């Protein structure tokens, strides 16, 4: 088994809002090995992006982390000072954000932004990086952007959505070494270029031997790209398995529902969805956060959050139905 790159342990993230606290992340456990491609799936608002922003320490001001640890290569990044943190990010981590329009600064050219990213990728003191321009040009070229030279002098508004997303990928190409986080990288793109962009990301990661975290609500995308998948629901990791295993035999009722709600091209009719929606984070259900929507919920589900337990080789699920090591639905 290869070495662990990232290990998130029992992470809680809260948001202070007017008149209360939103308890969004509720003890997230998550790890990524070196060179591994991991998927993180779940419906909108379940805390996928929050988990990643916590990992990069770019949560908004009103967020706090009351509990938990985040280890990158064995270092707890919640305990680093801002300089060590900048060093760590510059050297190893990169993130492609969901919306390429807001992920690029509108008042600086691509070249200006790329220049600083490359400059500080060698460390936060901004040592001299030789051939910054060449690195920038080749990154843009590798991201399959036409006319990289002209691209350097362009502002984001002069580019189309697909080009902007590729520019974001070029940023990652120019610096990524350890870990690339791709947050819904294709959601805002045309179907026709989704595939190209995904291929680009996959190539980049494989070439650099970096790890990938692909955040998506599309199970198909996760299946195509990743080796292992985490399923997240309302701030909890509720299931984790090798991608092929998960699709073959999902355990958690939520995962089952998620798979059943994928529309199929062949076969008639609409897919069945999951009734209800994500709970209010201000007063989340005391037990399993999925219990109110779960067709199999029974007494223990409303008491406490079930822990992640092994149900199969490398297959973990957080559900009381499997607490005896086997499926147990007699109370359902």
């Amino acid at each position, binding site marked *: 088994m290869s070495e662990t790159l990232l290990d998130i342990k029992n992470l809680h993230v809260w948001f202070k809002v007017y008149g209360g606290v939103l308890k969004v992340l509720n003890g997230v456990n998550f790890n990524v090995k070196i060179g591994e491609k991991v998927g993180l799936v779940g419906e909108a608002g379940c805390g996928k992006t929050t988990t990643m*922003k916590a990992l*990069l*320490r*770019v949560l*908004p*001001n009103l967020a706090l982390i009351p509990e938990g640890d985040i280890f990158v290569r064995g270092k707890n990044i919640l305990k680093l000072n*801002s*300089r060590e943190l*900048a*060093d*760590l*990010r*510059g*050297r190893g*981590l*990169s*993130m492609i*954000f*969901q*919306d390429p329009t*807001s*992920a*690029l*600064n*509108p*008042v*600086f*050219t691509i070249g200006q*932004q790329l220049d*600083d*990213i490359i400059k*500080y*990728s060698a*460390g*936060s003191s*901004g040592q001299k990086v030789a051939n910054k321009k060449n690195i920038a040009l080749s990154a843009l070229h590798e991201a399959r952007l036409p006319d990289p030279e002209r691209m350097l002098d362009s*502002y984001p*508004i*002069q580019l189309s959505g697909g080009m902007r997303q590729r520019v*974001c990928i070029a*940023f990652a190409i120019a*610096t990524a070494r350890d870990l690339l986080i791709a947050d819904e990288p294709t959601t805002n793109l045309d179907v026709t270029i989704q595939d190209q962009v995904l291929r680009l990301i996959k190539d980049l990661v494989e070439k650099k031997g970096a790890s990938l975290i692909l955040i998506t609500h599309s199970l198909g995308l996760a299946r195509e790209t990743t080796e292992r998948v985490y399923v997240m629901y309302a701030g909890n990791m509720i299931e984790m398995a090798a991608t092929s295993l998960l699709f073959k035999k999902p355990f958690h009722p939520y995962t089952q529902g998620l798979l059943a709600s994928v529309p199929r091209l062949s076969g008639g009719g609409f897919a069945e969805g999951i009734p209800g929606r994500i709970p209010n984070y201000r007063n989340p259900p005391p037990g399993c956060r999925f219990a109110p929507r779960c067709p199999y919920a029974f007494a223990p589900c409303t008491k406490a959050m079930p822990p992640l337990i092994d149900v199969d080789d490398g297959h973990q699920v957080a559900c009381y139905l499997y607490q005896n090591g086997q499926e147990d639905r007699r109370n359902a």
Partner: protein
Amino acid sequence: MRLGPFVLRRLAISIFVLFGLSILIFLIARIVPGDPARMALGPRAPVDVVERLRQQMHLDRPLLEQYGLWLWEVAHGNLGDSLVTRRPVKQDIREFFPATLELVGLTAIFIIVGGISLGVISARYANTWFDNVVRLFSYLGIVTPAFAWAVILMLLFGFVWHIFPTYGRLTEGVIPPVTITGMYTIDSLLNGRFDLFWDAFMHLILPAIALALPPMSQAARITRSSMADNQNKDCIASMIAYGVPNRVVTGKYLLKPSLISPITVMALDIAATFGYAFMVEKIFGFPGLARYGIQVMLNKDVNAIVGVVMVLGVVFITLNIVVDIIVAYLDPRIRLLGRNV
């Protein structure tokens, strides 16, 4: 967008704006009730003397003809005589405008430097004690009008502690520097008279602070909220996530997009100060254009009113062009798409 054609176009438009403004203020000055000639000569002046002055000022002619005559004079560089000072309006403006210009100039420096730096520091340390203090005082700054600040500052720093002078442009009895620009601070420097410069400068400080406090507080608040808005955007998170240090992100990637709205507001505030300054000028006995403007308006001094308003119009238009250039420089969305210009 290229700068040359842009400025030329704006200047061309400005001429029409000034033309419209002149018609408007020319009419308003004459429509307002009250006979300028009678007001100038006083209630005891004989009727025939008043009538002669009316004729002399063409006030007996139809409005259109009056305007035509006025334009003819303006074309020859003449703004007519003031009834209050009994001098050519041009000469009055030449004397009073530089005084206000140097006062508002210092005010503008306070507004820009104070407003932006307070806003930036406040945003950088959002929700800390420093931020809270700045926010509290900026509320106070906005709700307290400049003339109230003028009185408070004068009392504290002029009479309780004798730090700053409280009256006029120079200490009584001091002979002003040889006129070059009309601004004492600059003229004294050009003459090499540093003692005079210091004297003139000290006279500017209290009124400039009084004028600057309300718009500066406003600018600080807008800068802070604009920074706070941008702070949580993905493009900032992205830069931080790539390891760009905080000082670079804040000072460059956050500051530039956040300056656009405060700059626009500050420029309008600064332009408005030329007109609003009259109370503060009056309190500090500062012979400026704003004070002169109010004085001539109360006396229905038609030529002077039109002259002062036209000068203010030119000031507004110039500042607007300057701001548009700065904003276009800061924001490529305006520069490249030609939006809002």
